[in-house]
């Protein structure tokens, strides 16, 4: 397994001295190369789960493993793309992408070459010299994705990366995520609150619900791989509509199947 989560629980301290449980008893195993979509309503703890996997947040109980290594903090084996692109505005697009290489003291020339390759991969060839504020929202997320990819992580953690984009840009970016996933073969954990997005992208759907958040549903999906062949036509397949209706009920019921 690429990523294994054992009985993970997270509690946040409250102002009154108590503890509010956010996640409880999360068990999840993700094999290499999957694109797992984590779906849930706002406040169900899906970002908390992603932060715990990224190592930003120490779990209250349970363990997280990447291959045979236990997660104790952030590490370059797990790349992150966040909803707010969190680009460094004092650097241009290329230097933003190359940031991870700069941390490892890789020579400037190699850094720039690899940053250009990464920019090319996300469809931003030739935009390296642009300041971040000259880029559109979608382009900024592309830079953010390239920045995460350049460190060659084993898992890509994406926390509602398309949530702040307009509908048309979001559709283009969904296809980009699929394309990058296919070309790099990365294991991806993609958090979203959009059911259509989840169905379109995922090879597997994990639904988080309740307070504290628990995994209430987990099933394999076929549309992500299909979308690689026929693109957004997937969304018009009868099977897509059927799956959508069925999952809507599952999510709104919040009950385990």
């Amino acid at each position, binding site marked *: 397994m690429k990523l294994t989560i054992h009985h993970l629980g997270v509690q946040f301290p409250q102002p009154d001295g108590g503890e509010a449980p956010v996640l409880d008893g999360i068990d999840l195993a993700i094999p290499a190369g999957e694109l797992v979509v984590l779906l849930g309503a706002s406040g169900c703890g899906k970002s908390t789960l992603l932060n715990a996997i*990224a*190592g*930003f947040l120490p779990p209250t109980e349970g363990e997280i493993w990447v291959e045979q290594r236990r997660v104790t*903090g*952030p*590490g*370059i084996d*797990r*790349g*992150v793309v*966040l909803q*707010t692109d*969190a680009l*460094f*505005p*004092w650097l241009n697009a290329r230097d933003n992408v190359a*940031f*991870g290489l*700069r*941390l*490892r003291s890789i020579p400037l020339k190699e850094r720039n070459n690899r940053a250009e390759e990464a920019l090319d991969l996300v469809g931003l060839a030739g935009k390296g010299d642009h*300041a*971040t*504020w000259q880029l559109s929202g979608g382009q900024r997320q592309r830079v*953010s994705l390239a*920045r*995460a990819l350049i*460190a060659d992580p084993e898992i890509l953690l994406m926390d509602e990366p398309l949530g702040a984009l307009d509908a048309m840009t979001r559709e283009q970016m969904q296809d980009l995520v699929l394309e990058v996933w296919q070309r790099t073969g990365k294991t991806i954990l993609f958090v979203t609150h959009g059911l259509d997005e989840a169905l379109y992208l995922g090879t597997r759907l994990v639904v988080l619900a309740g307070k504290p958040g628990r995994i209430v549903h987990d099933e394999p999906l076929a549309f992500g791989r299909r979308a690689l062949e026929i693109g957004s036509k997937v969304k018009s397949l009868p099977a897509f509509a059927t799956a959508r209706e069925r999952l809507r009920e599952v999510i709104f019921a919040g009950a385990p199947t």
Partner: protein
Amino acid sequence: MSFLSPLPVADISLPLIVPAEGFPFDDQLRPRTPAPPARKARRRTGVPARIWIPLATLAGFLALWWAVTAFGAVPALFLPSPQAVATRLSRLVTEGFVDATLAQHLAASLFRVFAALAAALLLGVPAGFAIGLSTVGRGILDPIVEFLRPIPPLAYLPLVIIWAGIGESAKVLVIALAMLPPIIIATAAGTRGVDGNRLNVARALGATRAQLLRLVVLPSASPSILTGTRIALGAGWSTLVAAELVAATRGVGFMIQSAANFLATDVVVAGIFVIAGVAFVLELAIRLLERALVGWAAHA
């Protein structure tokens, strides 16, 4: 000092709120009437209002000044005429006053201010980091800064002289003490304002603590640090005259002080203009520096 800043310098810390094309409401609320045929577009060839109004104000003051002195309303001992001050200013440049030319006085003053600025930055930026990043650092330094901040430099000048003597170091020390609080407070604010997501992304890319400080926190805080530096330069330059009161032989503040002893009012007035002029140039310089170094902050 900043009321003398009418030049079109973009203030990046205060972005314009009104869009350049104006507000659209007016046009939308009114019923559409066909545009008047061939209305001549008024072509603006003159100087824009934001430039000519301040210039006119200055000219007005100058005219008033000239009038009250020319018609003898105020004796020259209290207020010399503009012409007398201008003549004195040119003589200050060529002949000087109390054994030094204006350039030598200015050089002495600028040296003190910039030496103090260097010291204040060297101490203040790390102190601001400590306050912004660590609870312990904040606990130790915050009370000191809050104690120092409201005290006028003139109040601790005697103590500084007792400690550091009447030499150059006492003057630099007083100016540096006046500059420290704005730099520390601005740095701490900038450090606390660092976006947590940026820190997290950098950590996920493998940044060590030292790399986080150097490559994320420092650049994030740099617009704040420069703003603090701008305020500090103003504070330091204002403290200069007080610092040069004691046992100085050079300096613009000293020049004004000794001129006052000789009742050379024209030198006093000329000196005041020099101080204001230098403050204005410093302000311009640091704004240009801000635009060059942290121009991104205006967009981010």
